[in-house]
């Protein structure tokens, strides 16, 4: 993997020299051992700290809105472009913004990198214990070095949840592709979590969600992390008409989560960021998953996670199911 970082840095120096990007967005080591955080470089030496490895990284697409779409002006030709490091799931989020006319593809320089599943730091720490310093990955086996000894475990156990249901492991198109993907991730659609809830009775379901939503503190972190939530002014910040009142009562919580989920229905790329950033761990993936499952079932869309030119709710077929 190390040479991958070198290749990236070469490309970044080249882009800055040719002066066609004003900024490059990538990752660098975070404060804890295995955490990776977004890094922004306006010139080559700021980019030196950037690395590429197998650890989980936040999705960078949302930052493009701030960089390019200052006042929702992203869909207008810009003089300087922005470079961004992109895996398959990042590409889905970028495509979400392009299809939603929030940013123009021409304003981006996409550097595509291969990926066959990232490691979830939480799971790694839990499994390997605090003292594991370093994790190296070759093929399927993961070696972990602690003070005392190294240990081999199967990568599957510490794989990130979203990678188990990976929609797009290869970057569909990019300006620069560092390396071709080795092999395709064999992945199957798994709505078992959603089906678990569907099996409950209506009372049980209401109880389940009432308990989840009562923990919600309306911090809107989920909205801020979601690339499908790219409005200029969010409806929850608009007071006339007041769709959502400020009181944190159960009915308002249901209202908030109903509206948020409906707004991303058919547009969510299942990147899992909302669930990851939620401070009180509400299983938002279930809500988005329910919509995704129904859309694929009812409107025979084979993968609703890949943003289409027209969103599923933006079109209809004459032979849509009759019984509503």
């Amino acid at each position, binding site marked *: 993997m190390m040479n991958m970082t070198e290749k990236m840095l070469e490309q970044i120096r080249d882009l800055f020299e040719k002066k066609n990007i004003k900024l490059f967005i990538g990752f660098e080591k975070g404060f804890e051992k295995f955490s990776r955080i977004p890094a922004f470089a306006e010139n080559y030496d700021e980019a030196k700290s950037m690395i590429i490895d197998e650890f989980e990284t936040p999705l960078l697409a949302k930052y493009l809105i701030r960089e390019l779409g200052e006042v929702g002006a992203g869909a207008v030709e810009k003089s300087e472009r922005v470079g961004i490091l992109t895996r398959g799931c990042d590409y889905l989020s970028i495509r979400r913004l392009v299809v939603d006319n929030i940013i123009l593809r021409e304003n981006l320089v996409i550097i595509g990198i291969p990926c066959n599943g990232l490691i979830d730091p939480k799971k790694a720490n839990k499994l390997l214990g605090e003292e594991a310093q370093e994790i190296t990955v070759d093929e399927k086996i993961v070696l972990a070095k602690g003070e005392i000894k190294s240990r081999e475990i199967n990568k599957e156990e510490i794989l990130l949840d979203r990678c188990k249901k990976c929609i797009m492991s290869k970057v569909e198109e990019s300006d620069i592709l560092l390396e071709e993907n080795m092999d395709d991730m064999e992945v199957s659609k798994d709505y078992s979590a959603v089906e678990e809830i569907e099996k409950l009775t209506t009372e049980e379901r209401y109880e389940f969600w009432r308990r989840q939503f009562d923990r919600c503190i309306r911090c809107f972190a989920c909205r801020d992390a979601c690339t499908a939530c790219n409005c200029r002014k969010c*409806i929850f910040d608009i007071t006339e008409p007041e769709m959502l009142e400020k009181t944190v009562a159960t009915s308002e919580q249901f209202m908030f989560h109903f509206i948020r989920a409906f707004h991303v229905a058919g547009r969510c790329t299942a990147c899992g960021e909302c669930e990851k950033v939620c401070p009180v761990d509400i299983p938002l993936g279930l809500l988005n998953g329910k919509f995704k499952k129904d859309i694929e079932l009812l409107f025979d869309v084979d993968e609703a996670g890949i943003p289409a030119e027209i969103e599923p709710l933006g079109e209809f077929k004459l032979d849509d199911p009759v019984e509503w």
Partner: protein
Amino acid sequence: MKKIGVFVCWCGLNISSTVDVEKASEELKNYPGVFYADDYKYLCSDPGQELIKKTIVDNKLEGIVVAACSPNMHESTFRAAAEAAGLNPYRVEITNIREQASWVHSNKEDATAKAIQLIKSTVEKVKKSEDLFPQQIPLTKKVLVIGGGISGMTVALEVAEAGYPVILVEKEPQIGGNMAKLSETFPTLDCASCILTPKTAEVGRHSNITLMTNSEVIESTGYFGNFTVKVKRKPTFVDWKKCIGCMLCQEKCPKKTNSDFEHGMGKRKAISVAFPQAIPYRPIISEKECIYFKTGKCKICVKVCPVDCIEFEQEEKIIEENIGAIVVASGYDLLPKEELGEYGQGKYADVIDGMQFERIASASGPTEGVIKRPSDGKIPKSIVFIQCAGSRDNQKGRPYCSKICCMYTAKHAMLYKHQVHDGEATIFYMDIRAGGKGYEEFVQRAIEDDHVLYLRGRVARVYEEDGRLVVLGVDTLSGEQVRIEADLVVLATAVIPSIGAKALGQTLKVGTDTYGFFNEAHPKLKPVESMTKGVFLAGCAQAPRDIPETVSQATGAAAKVITMFSKNHLVSDPQVAKVNEKICVGCLLCKPICPYKAIEPEIVEVRVGCRAEKRQVATINKGLCQGCGACSVACRSGAMNLSGFSNEQILEELKSLCL
């Protein structure tokens, strides 16, 4: 808080009988935002409207709620009254407490409570209303008439006479429709083609009328005053401009086939014109029948044609027209005999329907007017006419009366008796419906002078035995079962909308009822208008009717078109979509939803702090938008809103109804 006036109408007893009108207006007096509340006997009357106008002016009211009948009835009346008093008409809202409260509930207490709650919710809606101003949109002064029968021709002639261009589209190769197939017409027995041919000739040569026969409308977009219509002109394989109508080709053509115009009673050639007085008097080659198309040989018509106008490789053409108004005059067809199992399911040659009898009795028909049996050509000694074959029959799904059969059957019997004096004409009927001018006298003449036997009863079964037809029926007046042996049986089959009417309705986005007849805007007050503005109806396309009624309705439809074209521009409804550019991010999720393609992206200049920033937002073409509001649901941030039914208004209405 707006100064709102509430007027609760008694509507005589219609509302006050089950809604305590006084209690309602009393309660509304001290509802927040309501400055004036009163009830009145007939608000839609002139004094009623005067009361409203006076109250607006005296108290400088900013919003009006009229609790009365359905907005479809008097919304425009009360909005006009408010406008006359200087208040923007879109500050007036109607609460429907007649059709949707007093008339549908019997318990007075519940009905009153519901009425009060409905009025309060309309007050909330008015509080969120805004001033809206109608727009002027340009208008194309050209009418498209679909259907070249008597109704379509009448509309075309009237509008052309008024000086406006007309496009007349007709499915068949010639105009004349069903009337051209008739022998004589009731009640005067004057021959159909004698009174029709002058009309068709006039249509043929009128400078303002462009005739498009053998064509059909395949697409219609746009809105009233500005329709864009695509017409498919099916190939006739003969160049009608060059053709001089000598009909040598029809004479020499070797291939004979069933003529649709004759409804199977007569033959025609593969290249032919339907009947001698057809307009345009030009032949057409039937691709299915012509030997050349099947085998590539023959081409006799090419050899005999003096002006060489046969074009086998002629293609269909799609023509696009800008149209201001559309008149649907697609006429009717008869219920196919195959659907009537009890009368032989179309198996017996001598069981025919009314139109086939017309062709046999018609002088220009296959039998030159001599009434003969289709099976062996003999003169029938006894004919049985069966009324209501498929009409007034719930089991066959057509409970309606087809209105014209009683009269044309009496005519048929009369024509037969005039030819075969000693022949027996028996008519099985349920009720004779002869309500037009001179109709009842006509039927009495058939009974008394021509001795037509009217048997009141239904026929159970018709079957063939030893070359004759056995009719098993009942005579309910004598209570006897009846068995009649007849040479010919004529079924007065149900009048149904013309084939393709339902599809035409969906192309023009005009609703049809469960039987396929077009829905008029209002059965009593707007019989010639459809629910879609700018699309008018005439003739049997809307419901079964006879020729006098069709012509008067067609003239009415023409008048509607002419009044529409008398103005230079049209006033558009301002209750259309509206974008709040401060909120819109330009994602255009709304764009694919709009059926009228009224939403387009636009780059706008916006000041952000000290610098100017270019940004993309969605914009609405107010002329195209018809105000359906589907886009406002697709807009997540609420930037897209619909004036007149805005998010704020609906939410307020909803909240006050739920408490």
